[in-house]
C-alpha cells in the first residue's frame, strides 16, 4: 500500500459506489443516484444534496469530469442533462480501492469461516 494513491484510501462507501456507477458509461446526477441504489442493493439512497456534495469533491480531486456538450452528443445522443465520467486518475483510484478491498476480504476469509458463527 505504498503507491501514490494509497493516501486517498480507503474510500467511503458512497464514493466507491459513485465511482463504480460511472465505470460502464458517463451518467447524469439522477442516473448516478439510481445506479448507486442498484449497486448497493438499496442500502445507499443518496439525496440530491449528498450526491452533489460528493460529486463536487470528486470533481475537485479530478477523479471525475463533466462531459462537454460535443462529447455528450457524440457518446450518447439520448443523454439530455449534464453528465459526468471517470477520469484516468479516477480509474486508478478505483482500481487501488478494489485491490485493497480484495486483500482485506482474502485475509478475512483466511481467518473466518461460516462454521465459526
Amino acid at each position, binding site marked *: 500500500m505504498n503507491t501514490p494513491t494509497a493516501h486517498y484510501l480507503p474510500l467511503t462507501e458512497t464514493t466507491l459506489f459513485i465511482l463504480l456507477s460511472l465505470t460502464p458509461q458517463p451518467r447524469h446526477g439522477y442516473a448516478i443516484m439510481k445506479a448507486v441504489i442498484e449497486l448497493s442493493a438499496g442500502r445507499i439512497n443518496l*439525496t440530491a444534496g449528498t450526491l452533489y456534495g460528493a460529486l*463536487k469533491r470528486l470533481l475537485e480531486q479530478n477523479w471525475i469530469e463533466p462531459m462537454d456538450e460535443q462529447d455528450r452528443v457524440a457518446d450518447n445522443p439520448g443523454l439530455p442533462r449534464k453528465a459526468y465520467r471517470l477520469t484516468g486518475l479516477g480509474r486508478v483510484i478505483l482500481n487501488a480501492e478494489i485491490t485493497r478491498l480484495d486483500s482485506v476480504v482474502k485475509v478475512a476469509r483466511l481467518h473466518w469461516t461460516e462454521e465459526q458463527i
Partner: protein
Amino acid sequence: MTRIAIFCHSSYVALIRLYPAKFRHRFGAELLEVFTAKLTEAGPLGTSAVIRVWLHELAELPGNLFTEYQLAFVKSYGKGEFQMSNTLRSRLFFLGVGLPLGLVVTLAFINPNWFRVLFSNNLGWLISVSFGLMLALNVLLLIPRGNPILIGWRPALVVACAFLAALFVIFGPAFLTVIKRFPSEGTPLQSFLTIGLILIDLGCVGAGVFLVARSPGKNSNVLP
C-alpha cells in the same frame, strides 16, 4: 404534479438558497433537476411516497449544509479570500456569535446567583477583557475595508462588536463562578448549558486567533 409535490418542489427551491453561493451557482440547477426527478418518480406511488422523498432530503440538509459551509470556509481561508461579502454570511456569523451570547444572557437571568462575585474577581476581569478584545478583533477581521455591500453597515457592526465585547466583560466573571461551582451548584442542565456556551465562545475567540495567525498580510488591509 399534485399540490403536495408542488409544495415540496417550491420549498426545495427555497432550501437550495441556503447552500454556499459558489456551490449553489454550480450545482443548484442540477440539484433541483434531480429532486424533481425523484418527486416525479414518487408521484404515482402516492402522497406518502412524495412526502418521504421530501423528508429524506430535509433530514440530510443540515449535515450537507454544514459540510459545504465548512469546506467553503476552510478553502477560502486557505487562499486568503474570505470576506463577509454577502448578507447571508454576515447573518450566519452573527447567528454563530450572537445566539450563544443571547443564550448566556438568558441563562444568567434565570440564575442570578451567578452574579454574586461579579466585579470581585480580578482573574475574571482579565480573561473577560481578553475575550472581548479577541472577539472584537475577530469581527473586525471579517469586515473588509471598502466592501460595497457592507460599507453602510460598518459603523453598526463596530457598535455591535463593542456591545459583544462589553457583554464578555460583564458576564465573564459569572462564567468563572459557574465553572468553580460546577457541578456542586445549579441543576445539571444549567451547568451543562453554561459550560457548553463557554466552550462555544472560546471557539469564537480561538477562531479569531487562528485568523490573525493565518492571514497576517490581510489584517493590515481590513483592520480600521
